[in-house]
């Protein structure tokens, strides 16, 4: 599988003031596949995402996307090579409307000054805006597109983040807890949506605590614990792995089939 690995993380280390948060972690994400990154709270998942997206720099190791090193690229350029992310603690722009937040997601696609200075606010039927609206409705977000995002319910904002990340037309989409704050029904809808969004070859890496969601969506799972890799294999095998069960799933996993979020 490493042959068609899209993203490769090799021997990555990161510490904050002496505390080793990510230790010698290596894994890869298969092209066109859907991979989950799970682990207990504080295991280093978000940190891993920050390293991949370049928000923070790593101490050592290598990150490659399609065989090309990306770890020296500044964060702003990584979206240009096809990497897009969402945030665990929702980071939408509070003063922008829903559709403007989505339009911002297209920023990396604009080619040159001409497009940078093309008015988008004046013509409501502009193609960019139309695309944004289409994506929103595909994701099942039913809100007034011109409403400011600040007052929206948690779950809605969470999904807007996902749509925003998709707008850059990435090759690799990394989502940090996209289902948090969604109810089981909405979680299932999100899962369906993500499956369709990845149907045409988009590679997906998600961090998520909702195991039902993970089982339904991802074929491959990577588990971190205290910054170290403790499992890297098919999702189906996670439940049977003793280390994972002890560190992450808890006793219930053994008894209740699904674990975590019930479904």
């Amino acid at each position, binding site marked *: 599988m490493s042959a068609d690995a899209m993203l490769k993380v090799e021997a990555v280390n990161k510490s*904050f003031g002496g505390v080793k948060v990510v230790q010698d972690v290596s894994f890869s994400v298969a092209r066109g596949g859907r991979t989950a990154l*799970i*682990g*207990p*709270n*504080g*295991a280093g*998942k*978000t*940190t891993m995402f920050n390293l991949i997206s370049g928000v923070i720099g790593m101490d050592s190791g290598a990150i490659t996307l399609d065989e090309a090193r990306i770890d020296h690229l500044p964060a702003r350029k990584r979206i240009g090579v096809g990497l897009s992310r969402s945030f*665990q*603690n*929702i980071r939408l722009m509070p003063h922008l409307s829903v559709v403007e937040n989505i339009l911002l997601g297209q920023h990396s696609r604009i080619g040159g000054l001409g497009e940078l200075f093309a008015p988008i606010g004046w013509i409501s039927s502009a193609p960019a805006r139309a695309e944004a609206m289409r994506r929103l409705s595909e994701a099942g977000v039913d809100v007034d597109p011109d409403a400011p995002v600040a*007052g*929206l*319910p*948690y*779950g*809605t904002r969470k999904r807007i983040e996902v749509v925003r990340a998709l707008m850059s037309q990435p090759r690799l989409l990394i989502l940090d*807890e996209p289902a*948090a*704050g*969604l*109810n*089981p*029904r*909405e979680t*299932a*809808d999100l899962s369906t949506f993500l499956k369709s969004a990845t149907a045409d070859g988009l590679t997906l890496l998600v961090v998520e*605590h909702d*195991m039902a969601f993970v089982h339904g969506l991802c074929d491959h799972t990577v588990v971190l614990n205290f910054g170290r890799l403790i499992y890297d294999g098919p999702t189906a095998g996670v439940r049977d792995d003793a280390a994972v069960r002890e*560190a*992450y*799933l*808890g*006793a*219930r*996993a053994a008894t209740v089939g699904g*674990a*975590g*979020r*019930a*479904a």
Partner: protein
Amino acid sequence: MLLEVENLDVRHGRTHAVKALSFGVGADEIVTVLGSNGAGKTSLLRALQGLTPTSGGRVVFAGEDITKLSPPQRLRRGLALVPEGRQIAISLTVHENLLMGVYCRDDGDIARDIKRIYDRFPNLGARRDMSASVLSGGEQQMLAIGRALLARPRLMMLDEPSLGLSPLLVERLFDLIVEIHRDGLAILLVEQNTQMALEIAGRGIVMELGRAALEGAAADLRDDERLAAAYLGDGHS
């Protein structure tokens, strides 16, 4: 009833988030409020704590009309809220955040209670003197819960406390809720984790567009076809 809500109305500009809602929470109850995105759950809890002004109705707590009181005054009467989305003070250390939790207390058990929180959430203990800004999402959630517990309220309102917690910790969280309830706290719980919420709750209320669409004993709700259809999707239950 410890908490009685009568015809509560909450508006955000033109959005009517809670519409003439009435219900109560008894002193020895766990009541859970369920509902889809935007149903008005958060608006309800915030209004109960006094963070959002109400536009109609009454809130009675322990026999006293508290509709006009400020959030700190409500807290002093024994009503506490763990807000949605990890609201911790990132410029304070973990320990200082916990100390803020006992801001309105001045009894001698503070040190013991704080130690209990550290025991319960070892992640926090290990980061006692770190700035809360560096905590992971789940750790922040733990801190928010731990801090609220320290206020020793009579009624604790939790807005999606399991958000972002690992399955293991979700389990521990629900155990904890049951435990503190046994210590004599009433609980009003908003959750997306429907099944576990209904497992520990005595009663449940399902909100929909600001109204109570379903209400009843948790056990009944769990088996309710309509709820399953609305929340769990086809073929999921």
